[in-house]
Protein backbone atom coordinates (compact mmCIF):
# COMPACT_ATOMS: atom_id res chain seq x y z
CA UNK A 1 0.00 0.00 0.00
CA UNK A 2 2.66 2.49 0.94
CA UNK A 3 4.73 2.76 -2.17
CA UNK A 4 7.02 5.75 -2.43
CA UNK A 5 5.64 8.54 -4.57
CA UNK A 6 8.62 10.77 -4.10
CA UNK A 7 11.21 8.84 -6.07
CA UNK A 8 10.32 10.23 -9.47
CA UNK A 9 9.55 13.77 -8.31
CA UNK A 10 12.24 15.42 -6.29
CA UNK A 11 10.30 18.49 -5.23
CA UNK A 12 6.78 19.82 -5.25
CA UNK A 13 5.80 23.27 -6.31
CA UNK A 14 5.42 25.44 -3.22
CA UNK A 15 3.94 28.87 -2.64
CA UNK A 16 7.44 30.33 -2.49
CA UNK A 17 8.80 28.86 -5.73
CA UNK A 18 9.53 31.53 -8.30
CA UNK A 19 8.10 29.91 -11.38
CA UNK A 20 5.48 32.28 -12.83
CA UNK A 21 6.58 34.85 -15.42
CA UNK A 22 5.96 38.34 -14.06
CA UNK A 23 4.84 39.78 -17.37
CA UNK A 24 1.74 37.57 -17.48
CA UNK A 25 -0.87 37.55 -14.71
CA UNK A 26 0.93 40.13 -12.56
CA UNK A 27 1.23 42.57 -15.46
CA UNK A 28 -2.45 42.26 -16.36
CA UNK A 29 -3.43 42.79 -12.72
CA UNK A 30 -1.20 45.85 -12.37
CA UNK A 31 -2.51 47.36 -15.61
CA UNK A 32 -6.15 47.03 -14.75
CA UNK A 33 -5.72 48.23 -11.17
CA UNK A 34 -3.74 51.27 -12.28
CA UNK A 35 -6.33 52.10 -14.93
CA UNK A 36 -8.86 52.09 -12.08
CA UNK A 37 -6.92 54.65 -10.11
CA UNK A 38 -4.79 52.44 -7.85
CA UNK A 39 -1.36 53.64 -6.81
CA UNK A 40 1.57 51.65 -8.23
CA UNK A 41 3.70 51.69 -5.08
CA UNK A 42 0.83 50.68 -2.84
CA UNK A 43 -0.11 47.81 -5.13
CA UNK A 44 3.37 46.36 -4.78
CA UNK A 45 3.71 47.03 -1.04
CA UNK A 46 4.63 43.91 0.90
CA UNK A 47 4.75 41.70 -2.20
CA UNK A 48 8.52 41.96 -2.81
CA UNK A 49 7.71 42.56 -6.48
CA UNK A 50 9.51 45.35 -8.29
CA UNK A 51 7.79 47.17 -11.12
CA UNK A 52 11.01 46.72 -13.10
CA UNK A 53 10.49 42.92 -12.92
CA UNK A 54 7.12 43.23 -14.56
CA UNK A 55 8.39 45.45 -17.32
CA UNK A 56 11.54 43.43 -18.05
CA UNK A 57 9.56 40.36 -19.17
CA UNK A 58 12.18 37.98 -17.78
CA UNK A 59 11.60 37.91 -14.01
CA UNK A 60 9.76 35.07 -12.30
CA UNK A 61 7.39 35.46 -9.37
CA UNK A 62 6.17 33.01 -6.76
CA UNK A 63 2.50 32.11 -6.30
CA UNK A 64 2.65 33.74 -2.85
CA UNK A 65 3.74 37.03 -4.43
CA UNK A 66 0.84 36.91 -6.87
CA UNK A 67 -1.61 36.17 -4.06
CA UNK A 68 -0.23 39.18 -2.20
CA UNK A 69 -0.71 41.33 -5.29
CA UNK A 70 -4.31 40.11 -5.64
CA UNK A 71 -5.01 41.07 -2.03
CA UNK A 72 -3.55 44.54 -2.61
CA UNK A 73 -5.59 45.04 -5.77
CA UNK A 74 -8.77 44.23 -3.91
CA UNK A 75 -8.03 46.62 -1.08
CA UNK A 76 -6.94 49.38 -3.48
CA UNK A 77 -9.66 49.17 -6.10
CA UNK A 78 -13.13 49.82 -4.83
CA UNK A 79 -15.20 47.70 -7.22
CA UNK A 80 -16.08 44.05 -7.60
CA UNK A 81 -15.18 43.56 -11.22
CA UNK A 82 -11.36 43.23 -11.01
CA UNK A 83 -11.35 39.44 -10.97
CA UNK A 84 -13.70 39.30 -13.95
CA UNK A 85 -11.71 41.88 -15.91
CA UNK A 86 -8.56 39.92 -15.13
CA UNK A 87 -10.25 36.75 -16.39
CA UNK A 88 -11.03 38.40 -19.70
CA UNK A 89 -7.34 39.22 -20.08
CA UNK A 90 -6.03 35.70 -19.40
CA UNK A 91 -6.87 34.21 -22.79
CA UNK A 92 -5.76 34.85 -25.44
CA UNK A 93 -2.76 36.61 -24.04
CA UNK A 94 0.97 36.37 -23.62
CA UNK A 95 1.17 32.98 -21.90
CA UNK A 96 3.42 31.73 -24.67
CA UNK A 97 3.05 28.31 -26.21
CA UNK A 98 0.11 27.20 -24.07
CA UNK A 99 -1.92 30.12 -25.46
CA UNK A 100 -1.09 29.00 -28.99
CA UNK A 101 -1.83 25.36 -28.30
CA UNK A 102 -5.25 26.26 -26.86
CA UNK A 103 -5.99 28.72 -29.64
CA UNK A 104 -5.51 26.02 -32.27
CA UNK A 105 -7.04 23.13 -30.35
CA UNK A 106 -9.76 21.06 -32.00
CA UNK A 107 -12.63 21.41 -29.55
CA UNK A 108 -13.41 21.88 -25.87
CA UNK A 109 -12.49 18.30 -25.09
CA UNK A 110 -9.09 18.77 -26.69
CA UNK A 111 -8.56 22.08 -24.90
CA UNK A 112 -9.44 20.60 -21.51
CA UNK A 113 -6.98 17.76 -22.08
CA UNK A 114 -4.25 20.28 -22.93
CA UNK A 115 -5.08 22.22 -19.79
CA UNK A 116 -4.90 19.07 -17.71
CA UNK A 117 -1.35 18.39 -18.92
CA UNK A 118 0.07 21.91 -19.17
CA UNK A 119 -2.05 23.52 -16.47
CA UNK A 120 0.92 25.04 -14.62
CA UNK A 121 1.70 27.28 -17.57
CA UNK A 122 -1.57 29.18 -17.45
CA UNK A 123 -3.60 28.19 -14.39
CA UNK A 124 -1.29 27.22 -11.53
CA UNK A 125 -3.74 27.94 -8.72
CA UNK A 126 -6.53 25.46 -9.35
CA UNK A 127 -6.76 21.90 -10.59
CA UNK A 128 -9.80 19.87 -11.54
CA UNK A 129 -11.02 16.28 -11.45
CA UNK A 130 -13.40 15.31 -14.23
CA UNK A 131 -16.46 13.10 -13.89
CA UNK A 132 -18.96 12.22 -16.53
CA UNK A 133 -22.56 11.07 -16.59
CA UNK A 134 -24.90 10.39 -19.51
CA UNK A 135 -25.54 14.02 -20.24
CA UNK A 136 -22.81 16.15 -18.75
CA UNK A 137 -19.13 16.47 -18.04
CA UNK A 138 -18.43 17.60 -14.48
CA UNK A 139 -15.28 19.48 -13.56
CA UNK A 140 -14.72 19.57 -9.79
CA UNK A 141 -12.19 22.23 -8.87
CA UNK A 142 -9.69 22.18 -6.03
CA UNK A 143 -7.13 24.59 -4.66
CA UNK A 144 -3.71 23.43 -5.91
CA UNK A 145 -1.47 25.71 -3.87
CA UNK A 146 -3.26 27.09 -0.82
CA UNK A 147 -4.89 30.26 -2.09
CA UNK A 148 -6.87 30.78 1.14
CA UNK A 149 -8.50 34.23 1.13
CA UNK A 150 -7.94 34.71 -2.61
CA UNK A 151 -9.83 31.56 -3.62
CA UNK A 152 -13.02 33.34 -4.67
CA UNK A 153 -11.07 35.97 -6.61
CA UNK A 154 -9.14 33.23 -8.43
CA UNK A 155 -12.31 31.26 -9.10
CA UNK A 156 -14.01 34.32 -10.59
CA UNK A 157 -10.99 35.07 -12.77
CA UNK A 158 -10.38 31.65 -14.24
CA UNK A 159 -14.06 30.82 -14.74
CA UNK A 160 -14.44 34.10 -16.63
CA UNK A 161 -11.38 33.17 -18.68
CA UNK A 162 -12.96 29.83 -19.56
CA UNK A 163 -16.25 31.43 -20.63
CA UNK A 164 -14.61 34.26 -22.58
CA UNK A 165 -12.08 31.89 -24.17
CA UNK A 166 -14.59 29.31 -25.37
CA UNK A 167 -16.80 32.09 -26.64
CA UNK A 168 -13.92 33.42 -28.71
CA UNK A 169 -13.03 29.99 -30.09
CA UNK A 170 -16.62 28.98 -30.87
CA UNK A 171 -18.12 32.40 -31.59
CA UNK A 172 -21.00 31.28 -29.37
CA UNK A 173 -21.51 31.20 -25.64
CA UNK A 174 -21.24 27.71 -24.18
CA UNK A 175 -24.04 27.17 -21.63
CA UNK A 176 -21.87 26.19 -18.67
CA UNK A 177 -23.55 25.43 -15.36
CA UNK A 178 -21.71 26.72 -12.30
CA UNK A 179 -21.90 25.49 -8.71
CA UNK A 180 -20.20 27.68 -6.12
CA UNK A 181 -19.46 26.74 -2.52
CA UNK A 182 -20.03 30.32 -1.36
CA UNK A 183 -23.24 32.28 -0.80
CA UNK A 184 -24.88 34.34 -3.55
CA UNK A 185 -22.74 37.50 -3.66
CA UNK A 186 -24.11 41.03 -3.68
CA UNK A 187 -22.31 41.75 -6.94
CA UNK A 188 -24.37 39.09 -8.72
CA UNK A 189 -24.57 41.26 -11.85
CA UNK A 190 -20.88 40.61 -12.52
CA UNK A 191 -21.46 36.85 -12.35
CA UNK A 192 -24.43 37.09 -14.71
CA UNK A 193 -22.64 39.36 -17.14
CA UNK A 194 -19.46 37.28 -17.26
CA UNK A 195 -20.60 33.73 -16.59
CA UNK A 196 -24.27 33.66 -17.59
CA UNK A 197 -27.39 32.81 -15.64
CA UNK A 198 -26.82 29.12 -14.83
CA UNK A 199 -25.48 29.85 -11.37
CA UNK A 200 -26.00 27.94 -8.14
CA UNK A 201 -24.62 29.20 -4.85
CA UNK A 202 -24.06 27.62 -1.42
CA UNK A 203 -23.28 24.27 -3.04
CA UNK A 204 -21.12 21.62 -1.36
CA UNK A 205 -18.41 21.86 -4.04
CA UNK A 206 -16.94 24.09 -6.72
CA UNK A 207 -18.00 22.64 -10.02
CA UNK A 208 -18.61 23.42 -13.69
CA UNK A 209 -20.98 21.23 -15.67
CA UNK A 210 -21.29 21.24 -19.43
CA UNK A 211 -23.54 19.22 -21.72
CA UNK A 212 -21.56 16.55 -23.57
CA UNK A 213 -22.29 17.70 -27.18
CA UNK A 214 -20.43 20.95 -26.47
CA UNK A 215 -17.21 19.02 -25.93
CA UNK A 216 -17.05 18.17 -29.62
CA UNK A 217 -18.25 21.43 -31.15
CA UNK A 218 -15.41 22.35 -33.52
CA UNK A 219 -13.30 25.39 -32.60
CA UNK A 220 -12.97 28.02 -35.32
CA UNK A 221 -9.21 28.37 -35.32
CA UNK A 222 -8.29 24.72 -35.02
CA UNK A 223 -5.10 23.63 -36.70
CA UNK A 224 -3.47 20.31 -36.03
CA UNK A 225 -0.02 21.37 -37.17
CA UNK A 226 0.08 24.71 -35.34
CA UNK A 227 -1.16 22.98 -32.19
CA UNK A 228 1.50 20.26 -32.44
CA UNK A 229 4.20 22.81 -32.95
CA UNK A 230 3.10 24.60 -29.77
CA UNK A 231 2.96 21.31 -27.87
CA UNK A 232 6.48 20.40 -28.97
CA UNK A 233 7.68 23.76 -27.65
CA UNK A 234 5.76 23.20 -24.41
CA UNK A 235 7.27 19.79 -23.89
CA UNK A 236 10.80 21.19 -24.14
CA UNK A 237 10.43 23.45 -21.16
CA UNK A 238 7.60 21.73 -19.37
CA UNK A 239 8.00 21.30 -15.66
CA UNK A 240 5.76 18.48 -14.48
CA UNK A 241 5.86 19.53 -10.87
CA UNK A 242 2.61 19.35 -8.97
CA UNK A 243 1.53 21.53 -6.14
CA UNK A 244 2.05 19.75 -2.85
CA UNK A 245 -1.62 19.74 -1.82
CA UNK A 246 -2.51 18.55 -5.27
CA UNK A 247 -0.07 15.65 -4.94
CA UNK A 248 -1.46 14.61 -1.54
CA UNK A 249 -4.98 14.90 -2.92
CA UNK A 250 -4.14 12.77 -5.97
CA UNK A 251 -2.67 10.16 -3.67
CA UNK A 252 -5.62 10.16 -1.25
CA UNK A 253 -8.04 9.91 -4.12
CA UNK A 254 -6.74 6.45 -4.89
CA UNK A 255 -6.29 5.43 -1.26
CA UNK A 256 -9.47 6.67 0.38
CA UNK A 257 -9.11 5.35 3.91
CA UNK A 258 -5.42 6.01 4.41
CA UNK A 259 -4.31 7.46 7.70
CA UNK A 260 -1.93 10.36 8.16
CA UNK A 261 0.79 7.83 9.01
CA UNK A 262 0.31 5.84 5.77
CA UNK A 263 0.23 8.96 3.64
CA UNK A 264 3.34 10.36 5.28
CA UNK A 265 5.10 7.04 4.58
CA UNK A 266 4.04 7.16 0.96
CA UNK A 267 5.57 10.63 0.63
CA UNK A 268 8.71 9.53 2.44
CA UNK A 269 8.34 11.89 5.37
CA UNK A 270 7.31 11.71 9.00
CA UNK A 271 3.68 12.44 9.97
CA UNK A 272 4.87 15.56 11.79
CA UNK A 273 6.57 16.85 8.64
CA UNK A 274 3.50 16.15 6.54
CA UNK A 275 1.32 18.00 9.03
CA UNK A 276 3.73 20.93 9.10
CA UNK A 277 3.89 21.09 5.29
CA UNK A 278 0.11 21.05 4.98
CA UNK A 279 -0.11 23.76 7.60
CA UNK A 280 1.96 26.01 5.33
CA UNK A 281 -0.94 25.79 2.89
CA UNK A 282 -3.45 26.49 5.65
CA UNK A 283 -5.12 23.10 5.30
CA UNK A 284 -5.40 20.07 7.62
CA UNK A 285 -5.10 16.43 6.65
CA UNK A 286 -8.60 15.64 7.91
CA UNK A 287 -9.98 18.51 5.85
CA UNK A 288 -8.41 17.13 2.67
CA UNK A 289 -9.89 13.71 3.36
CA UNK A 290 -13.33 15.18 4.07
CA UNK A 291 -13.32 17.28 0.88
CA UNK A 292 -12.37 14.32 -1.26
CA UNK A 293 -14.87 12.06 0.48
CA UNK A 294 -17.60 14.60 -0.15
CA UNK A 295 -16.70 14.99 -3.81
CA UNK A 296 -16.61 11.25 -4.32
CA UNK A 297 -19.89 10.68 -2.46
CA UNK A 298 -21.64 13.40 -4.48
CA UNK A 299 -20.36 11.87 -7.68
CA UNK A 300 -21.45 8.33 -6.83
CA UNK A 301 -24.81 9.26 -5.33
CA UNK A 302 -25.87 12.24 -7.40
CA UNK A 303 -24.29 11.55 -10.75
CA UNK A 304 -24.06 7.78 -10.89
CA UNK A 305 -27.24 7.34 -8.81
CA UNK A 306 -25.79 4.36 -6.93
CA UNK A 307 -27.50 3.07 -3.80
CA UNK A 308 -26.04 3.43 -0.31
CA UNK A 309 -24.61 -0.08 -0.11
CA UNK A 310 -22.68 0.16 -3.37
CA UNK A 311 -21.43 3.64 -2.63
CA UNK A 312 -20.29 2.71 0.87
CA UNK A 313 -18.54 -0.30 -0.57
CA UNK A 314 -16.81 1.67 -3.33
CA UNK A 315 -15.67 4.23 -0.78
CA UNK A 316 -14.18 1.58 1.52
CA UNK A 317 -16.64 2.10 4.36
CA UNK A 318 -17.11 -0.90 6.62
CA UNK A 319 -20.86 -0.42 6.99
CA UNK A 320 -23.72 1.74 5.75
CA UNK A 321 -24.53 3.63 9.01
CA UNK A 322 -20.94 4.83 9.16
CA UNK A 323 -21.19 5.97 5.57
CA UNK A 324 -24.49 7.78 6.21
CA UNK A 325 -22.99 9.61 9.16
CA UNK A 326 -19.97 10.68 7.13
CA UNK A 327 -22.08 11.99 4.24
CA UNK A 328 -24.26 13.93 6.66
CA UNK A 329 -21.17 15.48 8.21
CA UNK A 330 -19.61 16.42 4.85
CA UNK A 331 -22.61 17.83 3.04
CA UNK A 332 -25.26 18.51 5.67
CA UNK A 333 -27.68 16.19 3.84
CA UNK A 334 -28.34 12.47 3.99
CA UNK A 335 -27.42 10.21 1.05
CA UNK A 336 -31.05 9.89 -0.02
CA UNK A 337 -31.47 13.69 -0.03
CA UNK A 338 -28.35 14.01 -2.17
CA UNK A 339 -29.58 11.48 -4.67
CA UNK A 340 -32.68 13.58 -5.48
Amino acid at each position, binding site marked *: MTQQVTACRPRYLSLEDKCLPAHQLAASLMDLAI*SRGANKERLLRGTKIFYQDIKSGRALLSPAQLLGLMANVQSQVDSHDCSFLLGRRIFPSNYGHISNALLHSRDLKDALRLLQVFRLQICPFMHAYTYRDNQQLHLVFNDALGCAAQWQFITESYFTALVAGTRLLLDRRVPFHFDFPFARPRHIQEYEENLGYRLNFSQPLLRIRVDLPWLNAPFLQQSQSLKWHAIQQLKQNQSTRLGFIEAVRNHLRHHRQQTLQDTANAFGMSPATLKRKLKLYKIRFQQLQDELGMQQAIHLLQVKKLNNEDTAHLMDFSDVPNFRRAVKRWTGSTPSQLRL
Partner: protein
Amino acid sequence: MLFEKPTMNISLLSRHQNLVSLIAACLSLSVSLSFGLGQLKDWQEISWLDILGEGSIALLSLFWLFFILISRPPGRVTTGLVLGLSCFMFSALLDLFDEFVHYQAAAAGLSLIESIPAGIGMLIMSYALWHWHQEQLALNRQLCRREANTREHGQIDFITQLYRADYMRGQIDMQLRTKDDSPFSIMMLDIDNFDRFNRQFGPQEGDRLLREISELILMNLRTTDLACRYAGDRFILLLPGTDLTLANELAQDIRQAISHLAFKPYEQASPIFHSMTIATEAARTGDAVDSIISRVNRRLDDSKQHA
Protein backbone atom coordinates in the same frame (compact mmCIF):
# COMPACT_ATOMS: atom_id res chain seq x y z
CA MET B 1 -5.10 59.53 -16.13
CA LEU B 2 -8.38 61.24 -15.56
CA PHE B 3 -9.09 60.74 -11.90
CA GLU B 4 -7.14 59.87 -8.82
CA LYS B 5 -8.06 57.10 -6.42
CA PRO B 6 -10.14 58.55 -3.55
CA THR B 7 -7.57 58.15 -0.80
CA MET B 8 -5.98 61.27 0.69
CA ASN B 9 -5.26 63.40 -2.33
CA ILE B 10 -3.60 66.74 -1.55
CA SER B 11 -2.97 67.87 -5.12
CA LEU B 12 -5.45 70.76 -4.73
CA LEU B 13 -3.31 72.26 -1.96
CA SER B 14 -0.78 73.63 -4.41
CA ARG B 15 -3.49 75.74 -6.08
CA HIS B 16 -4.25 77.64 -2.89
CA GLN B 17 -0.97 79.50 -2.36
CA ASN B 18 -2.61 82.78 -1.34
CA LEU B 19 -4.90 81.13 1.18
CA VAL B 20 -2.06 79.06 2.64
CA SER B 21 0.00 82.22 3.17
CA LEU B 22 -3.04 83.87 4.78
CA ILE B 23 -3.28 81.02 7.30
CA ALA B 24 0.46 81.16 7.94
CA ALA B 25 0.16 84.92 8.53
CA CYS B 26 -2.60 84.37 11.09
CA LEU B 27 -0.46 81.83 12.90
CA SER B 28 2.65 84.02 13.03
CA LEU B 29 0.75 87.22 13.90
CA SER B 30 -0.94 85.57 16.86
CA VAL B 31 2.37 84.12 18.09
CA SER B 32 4.24 87.39 17.77
CA LEU B 33 1.45 89.46 19.33
CA SER B 34 1.07 87.22 22.38
CA PHE B 35 4.68 86.36 23.09
CA GLY B 36 6.03 89.75 21.96
CA LEU B 37 3.76 91.83 24.17
CA GLY B 38 3.38 89.50 27.15
CA GLN B 39 5.65 87.90 29.71
CA LEU B 40 5.77 84.20 30.27
CA LYS B 41 3.87 82.95 33.32
CA ASP B 42 5.43 80.80 36.02
CA TRP B 43 5.11 77.08 35.64
CA GLN B 44 2.60 76.76 38.52
CA GLU B 45 0.30 79.46 37.20
CA ILE B 46 -0.52 77.59 34.01
CA SER B 47 -3.89 75.83 33.95
CA TRP B 48 -3.42 72.74 31.83
CA LEU B 49 -7.13 71.99 31.62
CA ASP B 50 -7.77 75.35 29.92
CA ILE B 51 -4.90 74.71 27.55
CA LEU B 52 -6.34 71.35 26.62
CA GLY B 53 -9.74 72.87 25.87
CA GLU B 54 -8.59 75.98 24.04
CA GLY B 55 -5.75 74.15 22.31
CA SER B 56 -8.09 71.59 20.82
CA ILE B 57 -10.33 74.33 19.43
CA ALA B 58 -7.36 75.97 17.73
CA LEU B 59 -6.01 72.67 16.46
CA LEU B 60 -9.35 71.46 15.11
CA SER B 61 -9.98 74.71 13.26
CA LEU B 62 -6.57 74.29 11.62
CA PHE B 63 -7.61 70.74 10.73
CA TRP B 64 -10.85 71.98 9.12
CA LEU B 65 -8.93 74.56 7.14
CA PHE B 66 -6.70 71.81 5.82
CA PHE B 67 -9.68 69.76 4.67
CA ILE B 68 -11.33 72.73 2.98
CA LEU B 69 -8.11 73.40 1.09
CA ILE B 70 -7.61 69.82 -0.10
CA SER B 71 -11.29 69.32 -1.00
CA ARG B 72 -12.21 72.39 -3.00
CA PRO B 73 -10.83 74.13 -6.06
CA PRO B 74 -10.13 77.87 -5.66
CA GLY B 75 -13.11 80.21 -5.96
CA ARG B 76 -15.28 82.66 -4.07
CA VAL B 77 -16.87 80.11 -1.76
CA THR B 78 -13.53 78.57 -0.86
CA THR B 79 -12.00 81.97 -0.14
CA GLY B 80 -14.92 82.93 2.08
CA LEU B 81 -14.81 79.72 4.06
CA VAL B 82 -11.05 79.92 4.60
CA LEU B 83 -11.09 83.63 5.46
CA GLY B 84 -13.83 83.17 8.04
CA LEU B 85 -12.32 80.10 9.60
CA SER B 86 -8.88 81.80 9.71
CA CYS B 87 -10.31 84.70 11.72
CA PHE B 88 -11.90 82.22 14.07
CA MET B 89 -8.62 80.35 14.44
CA PHE B 90 -6.78 83.64 15.10
CA SER B 91 -9.04 84.31 18.10
CA ALA B 92 -8.71 80.76 19.32
CA LEU B 93 -4.92 81.04 19.17
CA LEU B 94 -4.84 84.34 21.11
CA ASP B 95 -7.10 82.73 23.66
CA LEU B 96 -4.76 79.75 23.90
CA PHE B 97 -1.55 81.78 24.17
CA ASP B 98 -2.78 84.06 26.95
CA GLU B 99 -2.78 80.99 29.16
CA PHE B 100 1.01 81.11 28.86
CA VAL B 101 1.64 84.87 29.24
CA HIS B 102 0.81 87.93 31.40
CA TYR B 103 0.10 91.13 29.52
CA GLN B 104 1.50 94.41 30.77
CA ALA B 105 -0.89 97.25 31.29
CA ALA B 106 -0.14 98.72 27.84
CA ALA B 107 -1.16 95.53 26.08
CA ALA B 108 -4.07 94.65 28.34
CA GLY B 109 -6.41 95.74 25.57
CA LEU B 110 -5.36 92.72 23.59
CA SER B 111 -7.25 90.32 25.82
CA LEU B 112 -10.30 92.56 25.57
CA ILE B 113 -10.42 92.50 21.78
CA GLU B 114 -9.26 88.95 21.23
CA SER B 115 -12.76 87.62 20.59
CA ILE B 116 -13.64 90.21 17.94
CA PRO B 117 -11.96 88.40 15.00
CA ALA B 118 -13.94 85.27 15.88
CA GLY B 119 -17.20 87.18 15.55
CA ILE B 120 -16.19 88.69 12.22
CA GLY B 121 -15.00 85.29 11.06
CA MET B 122 -18.34 83.70 11.89
CA LEU B 123 -20.14 86.37 9.85
CA ILE B 124 -17.87 85.78 6.87
CA MET B 125 -18.34 82.05 7.16
CA SER B 126 -22.12 82.36 7.31
CA TYR B 127 -22.02 84.42 4.14
CA ALA B 128 -19.77 81.82 2.50
CA LEU B 129 -22.06 79.00 3.61
CA TRP B 130 -25.01 80.70 1.95
CA HIS B 131 -23.05 80.76 -1.30
CA TRP B 132 -21.97 77.17 -0.71
CA HIS B 133 -25.64 76.23 -0.54
CA GLN B 134 -26.28 77.95 -3.88
CA GLU B 135 -23.26 76.22 -5.35
CA GLN B 136 -24.47 72.84 -4.10
CA LEU B 137 -27.84 73.36 -5.77
CA ALA B 138 -26.03 74.16 -9.02
CA LEU B 139 -23.93 71.01 -8.68
CA ASN B 140 -27.05 68.93 -8.01
CA ARG B 141 -28.47 70.24 -11.26
CA GLN B 142 -25.26 69.18 -13.00
CA LEU B 143 -25.65 65.72 -11.50
CA CYS B 144 -29.24 65.20 -12.58
CA ARG B 145 -29.68 61.98 -14.57
CA ARG B 146 -26.56 60.69 -12.85
CA GLU B 147 -28.04 60.84 -9.37
CA ALA B 148 -31.53 60.43 -7.87
CA ASN B 149 -32.58 61.47 -4.39
CA THR B 150 -29.78 59.91 -2.33
CA ARG B 151 -26.03 60.46 -2.42
CA GLU B 152 -23.59 57.59 -1.77
CA HIS B 153 -20.14 58.41 -3.10
CA GLY B 154 -18.95 54.87 -2.26
CA GLN B 155 -21.18 53.47 -4.99
CA ILE B 156 -19.79 55.48 -7.91
CA ASP B 157 -18.15 53.50 -10.70
CA PHE B 158 -14.62 54.68 -11.35
CA ILE B 159 -14.57 54.36 -15.14
CA THR B 160 -17.82 56.04 -16.13
CA GLN B 161 -18.44 58.09 -12.96
CA LEU B 162 -21.99 56.82 -13.04
CA TYR B 163 -23.45 55.07 -10.01
CA ARG B 164 -23.13 51.27 -9.88
CA ALA B 165 -25.74 48.51 -9.86
CA ASP B 166 -26.16 48.61 -6.03
CA TYR B 167 -27.33 52.20 -6.21
CA MET B 168 -29.80 51.40 -8.97
CA ARG B 169 -31.20 48.52 -6.93
CA GLY B 170 -31.84 50.94 -4.07
CA GLN B 171 -33.57 53.41 -6.38
CA ILE B 172 -35.77 50.76 -8.01
CA ASP B 173 -36.68 49.53 -4.55
CA MET B 174 -37.70 53.07 -3.61
CA GLN B 175 -39.84 53.36 -6.75
CA LEU B 176 -41.55 50.08 -5.96
CA ARG B 177 -42.34 51.25 -2.45
CA THR B 178 -43.97 54.54 -3.46
CA LYS B 179 -47.68 54.41 -2.81
CA ASP B 180 -49.00 56.26 -5.88
CA ASP B 181 -48.49 53.26 -8.20
CA SER B 182 -47.41 55.44 -11.13
CA PRO B 183 -45.84 53.30 -13.85
CA PHE B 184 -42.10 53.20 -14.31
CA SER B 185 -39.85 51.36 -16.71
CA ILE B 186 -36.36 49.88 -16.65
CA MET B 187 -34.09 49.91 -19.66
CA MET B 188 -31.00 47.72 -20.06
CA LEU B 189 -28.41 48.60 -22.72
CA ASP B 190 -25.50 46.49 -23.92
CA ILE B 191 -22.77 47.50 -26.37
CA ASP B 192 -22.55 45.07 -29.28
CA ASN B 193 -19.20 43.33 -29.85
CA PHE B 194 -17.51 45.18 -27.02
CA ASP B 195 -15.20 42.20 -26.43
CA ARG B 196 -13.97 42.31 -29.98
CA PHE B 197 -13.34 46.05 -29.70
CA ASN B 198 -11.39 45.48 -26.48
CA ARG B 199 -9.26 42.79 -28.06
CA GLN B 200 -8.55 44.90 -31.08
CA PHE B 201 -7.78 48.23 -29.42
CA GLY B 202 -6.90 47.27 -25.85
CA PRO B 203 -8.76 47.73 -22.59
CA GLN B 204 -7.75 51.38 -22.19
CA GLU B 205 -9.58 52.39 -25.34
CA GLY B 206 -12.41 50.13 -24.18
CA ASP B 207 -12.68 52.12 -20.95
CA ARG B 208 -12.71 55.36 -22.93
CA LEU B 209 -15.49 54.04 -25.16
CA LEU B 210 -17.53 53.19 -22.06
CA ARG B 211 -17.07 56.73 -20.80
CA GLU B 212 -18.10 58.33 -24.09
CA ILE B 213 -21.12 56.10 -24.48
CA SER B 214 -22.27 56.84 -20.93
CA GLU B 215 -22.13 60.57 -21.73
CA LEU B 216 -24.13 60.02 -24.87
CA ILE B 217 -26.78 58.02 -23.02
CA LEU B 218 -27.08 60.81 -20.43
CA MET B 219 -27.60 63.41 -23.14
CA ASN B 220 -30.60 61.51 -24.44
CA LEU B 221 -32.37 61.25 -21.09
CA ARG B 222 -34.97 63.47 -19.49
CA THR B 223 -34.05 65.24 -16.29
CA THR B 224 -36.12 62.82 -14.21
CA ASP B 225 -34.37 59.69 -15.50
CA LEU B 226 -31.41 57.97 -13.91
CA ALA B 227 -28.55 56.11 -15.62
CA CYS B 228 -26.19 53.68 -13.85
CA ARG B 229 -23.50 51.28 -15.00
CA TYR B 230 -24.75 47.74 -14.42
CA ALA B 231 -21.79 45.44 -15.15
CA GLY B 232 -19.15 45.23 -17.85
CA ASP B 233 -20.52 46.93 -20.96
CA ARG B 234 -24.09 46.95 -19.68
CA PHE B 235 -25.95 50.08 -18.56
CA ILE B 236 -29.26 50.32 -16.73
CA LEU B 237 -31.77 53.19 -16.80
CA LEU B 238 -34.63 54.00 -14.47
CA LEU B 239 -37.47 55.88 -16.20
CA PRO B 240 -40.05 57.08 -13.66
CA GLY B 241 -43.60 57.77 -14.82
CA THR B 242 -42.95 56.01 -18.12
CA ASP B 243 -44.90 53.19 -19.73
CA LEU B 244 -43.47 50.63 -22.11
CA THR B 245 -44.41 52.48 -25.32
CA LEU B 246 -42.68 55.65 -24.23
CA ALA B 247 -39.68 53.67 -22.98
CA ASN B 248 -39.34 52.03 -26.39
CA GLU B 249 -39.37 55.43 -28.06
CA LEU B 250 -36.59 56.57 -25.75
CA ALA B 251 -34.67 53.39 -26.57
CA GLN B 252 -34.98 54.21 -30.25
CA ASP B 253 -33.55 57.70 -29.63
CA ILE B 254 -30.55 56.27 -27.80
CA ARG B 255 -29.99 53.63 -30.46
CA GLN B 256 -29.90 56.34 -33.13
CA ALA B 257 -27.55 58.54 -31.12
CA ILE B 258 -25.13 55.65 -30.57
CA SER B 259 -25.13 54.72 -34.24
CA HIS B 260 -23.94 58.23 -35.07
CA LEU B 261 -21.08 58.22 -32.57
CA ALA B 262 -17.90 58.25 -34.64
CA PHE B 263 -15.47 56.89 -32.05
CA LYS B 264 -11.83 57.27 -33.03
CA PRO B 265 -9.50 54.90 -31.20
CA TYR B 266 -5.94 56.17 -30.62
CA GLU B 267 -6.69 59.45 -32.37
CA GLN B 268 -6.78 57.62 -35.67
CA ALA B 269 -8.79 59.32 -38.37
CA SER B 270 -11.14 56.52 -39.39
CA PRO B 271 -13.92 56.09 -36.87
CA ILE B 272 -15.36 52.87 -35.45
CA PHE B 273 -19.17 52.88 -35.28
CA HIS B 274 -21.06 51.03 -32.60
CA SER B 275 -24.51 49.74 -31.94
CA MET B 276 -26.33 48.79 -28.76
CA THR B 277 -28.82 46.11 -27.95
CA ILE B 278 -31.56 47.54 -25.75
CA ALA B 279 -34.34 45.92 -23.76
CA THR B 280 -37.14 47.59 -21.79
CA GLU B 281 -39.49 46.33 -19.11
CA ALA B 282 -42.32 48.04 -17.25
CA ALA B 283 -42.83 47.41 -13.55
CA ARG B 284 -45.73 45.11 -12.69
CA THR B 285 -47.73 45.00 -9.51
CA GLY B 286 -46.05 42.87 -6.87
CA ASP B 287 -42.67 43.20 -8.55
CA ALA B 288 -39.43 42.87 -6.58
CA VAL B 289 -36.13 44.49 -7.54
CA ASP B 290 -34.48 41.25 -8.59
CA SER B 291 -37.45 40.00 -10.58
CA ILE B 292 -37.70 43.12 -12.72
CA ILE B 293 -33.94 43.21 -13.30
CA SER B 294 -33.80 39.55 -14.26
CA ARG B 295 -36.77 40.01 -16.62
CA VAL B 296 -35.10 42.84 -18.48
CA ASN B 297 -31.78 40.97 -18.54
CA ARG B 298 -33.44 37.93 -20.03
CA ARG B 299 -35.17 40.03 -22.65
CA LEU B 300 -31.87 41.64 -23.54
CA ASP B 301 -30.15 38.28 -23.91
CA ASP B 302 -32.99 37.02 -26.07
CA SER B 303 -32.66 39.91 -28.47
CA LYS B 304 -28.86 39.40 -28.53
CA GLN B 305 -29.37 35.77 -29.55
CA HIS B 306 -31.74 36.70 -32.33
CA ALA B 307 -29.61 39.54 -33.62
